[in-house]
């Protein structure tokens, strides 16, 4: 399952950090952060609850870039 989320992040490098953090979150199969369109595309692993996983992704992203925002 793939879902797209709107995000807010100020710098391209921070977006890369977010992408890395999201990829490492449990339950995420693949993640891409598009800085230019300010979007995050997350592919969830089989049988995972998107809401729960995104909570983890958001926490992980806040950790690497406190200024970022993910609109769930």
């Amino acid at each position, binding site marked *: 399952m793939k879902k797209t989320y709107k995000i*807010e992040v*100020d*710098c*391209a*490098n921070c977006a*890369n*950090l977010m992408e890395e953090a999201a990829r490492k979150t449990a339950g995420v199969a693949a993640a*891409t*952060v*598009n*800085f*230019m*369109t*300010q*979007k995050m*595309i997350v592919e969830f692993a089989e049988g995972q609850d998107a809401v729960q996983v995104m909570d983890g992704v958001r926490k992980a992203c806040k*950790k*690497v870039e*406190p*200024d970022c925002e993910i609109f769930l």
Partner: protein
Amino acid sequence: MQELLESGLLVVVTILSVVLLLMGQKKSSGMTRKQKVMLWRILIATVLLLGLQTLGAEAFDQLGAAGRWIRLAVHLIDYLIIGYDILKKAFKGICNRQVFDENFLMAVATLGALALAVYENGEYLEVIAVMLFYQVGEWFQSYAVGRSRRNISDLMDIRPDYANVERDGKLEKVDPDEVDMGSIIIVQPGEKVPIDGVIVEGTSTLNTAALTGESLPRDAKTGDEVISGCINMTGVLKIQTSKEFGESTVSKILDLVENASSRKSKSEDFISRFARIYTPAVCYAALALAILPPLVQMVGMGLAPAWETWIYRALTFLVASCPCALVISIPLSFFAGIGGASRAGVLVKGSNYLETLSQVKTLVFDKTGTLTQGVFEVNGIHHSDLSDEKLVEYAALAESASSHPISKSLQRAYGKEIDRSRVTEIQEISGNGVIAKVDSVEVAAGNDKLMDRLGIAYISCHSVGTIIHMAINGKYAGHIVIADIVKPHSKEAIRQLKAAGVRKTVMLTGDAKKVANQVAASLGLDEVYSELLPADKVEKVEALLQAKPEREKLAFVGDGINDAPVLRRADIGIAMGAMGSDAAIEAADVVLMDDDPLQISKAIKISRKCLGIVYQNIVFSIAVKLACLILVAFGVANMWLAVFADVGVMILAILNAIRALRVQNL
């Protein structure tokens, strides 16, 4: 003099932030709340700093012993107003083991300078000013990037907001997503066609500029297919939708362009790798700068160590080292390039493809549909015992199952409805032709090879064109000559490609040698390979790939029909005239919306321009950075200059990146 300059700069910042705050009141400015808050902080900190500067250190000295500490406290407040978030981020970074980032650099540099100032009871101005100008730079970066991001997105915005559906005799605007396939929608003059479909009523002219970059409007009448994203210019159209919104051309294109910048190019990879080594390296270099020279002076030469000088230089070194200009401008350049290209009707599926496209030195063309119109016309019928109409009828029926342009032209020449029930036992022999039973008569239609294969003697033709030999019940029945027309801009396109630096142009075709050579000669192509089966084309491309040096890339241009394997095999596959053709959009890396061959040279020129800008930004930013670092290490430049260099390079790089968007006149 220096003081005057510094005060002048602070006044400029004050005025600028007031003006920007006023601008921010308007909705159209697009400033985020965060940016406005930051502006207020900048304004307050600047005014406070100006006040403290005019007051001067003497005012505090009059307060006696406590004066020094009151002065420190007031400056500290100012420092925290402007820089508390940086300190917080740096602290969080350390907690999360993300030590080396620009926040850390700034925090260490300013706190270090602050400590020196406290120790000497010296100038606090510099500490606060450095933080202030860093924040001003960050603000501009965030604003400029946000602004250009939105500009580019707006330019690419071909997404229709609504569709008109007739309900109970009234027009209703609904979300295009809610329109079912096969519904009737109404498009009024000036509106965008929201969903792909067929016109059931009305005539109009359509503006396809947003899709193809072609400014000439197209006529559309009842029965024509229309694709979403076109703008209806004159008449009211009733359209029966043939796809859902999500499957329509406009959605597909948007999807493609929006995801394009997720595919990173080598230059972008280089930058992120570079940033990963660069920041720690600079930190260690700064540490070495702070410790080694004093030690050498003290131990090696027996001089005073001058710790303060070298620590100050090390801190300035840190300030000068921020890699922001690089990190921000490279993806922005690619994004602008892809955006500009899509405006010109060239869809590039990723930054990496844009980069490869710029290195193309060998261009391989498919002939039919790419250089020629692919609209064949029956030019003549020779040596036939049957009446011409009868022969064409047989040919059209035998080829009725094929979607090859030649079969299509036979069917057009026949001109009547094709009754498929008359045709049985169709055998398509790839690259040869067709054998089928028509009205229980055995018909073979194909080229020389088919006749050889069947062992039928045939008469060769003198005319240039595609020759379809016909055999009926195993007996030769003459041939039909079909000729293709070269596209009007093909020759000009080849010339422009050569001018743009493409070294070798090659044409591959399944067509007869005579036709192929004639077309190649008239267009000025370097090499031509004819009479190829689809599989041979892949082999030829592989041979060409082997023959060229690694750095020079090979592109294949086709119309997306029958050449998907070749499109994939080439370094970069370009599909032409792809409006509405899903297979081509799928297989190719670059999709040209229009079928004008001039678009190919345009695509290459756009990529060259974009990559040129990328390299300019890389070289320019790194060069200025290095120069600054060296100047700082030798004590020529101070912290002011370091911050200016950082902010200035960044803004110039962003402005340069935006240039990639302007591709209209290439």
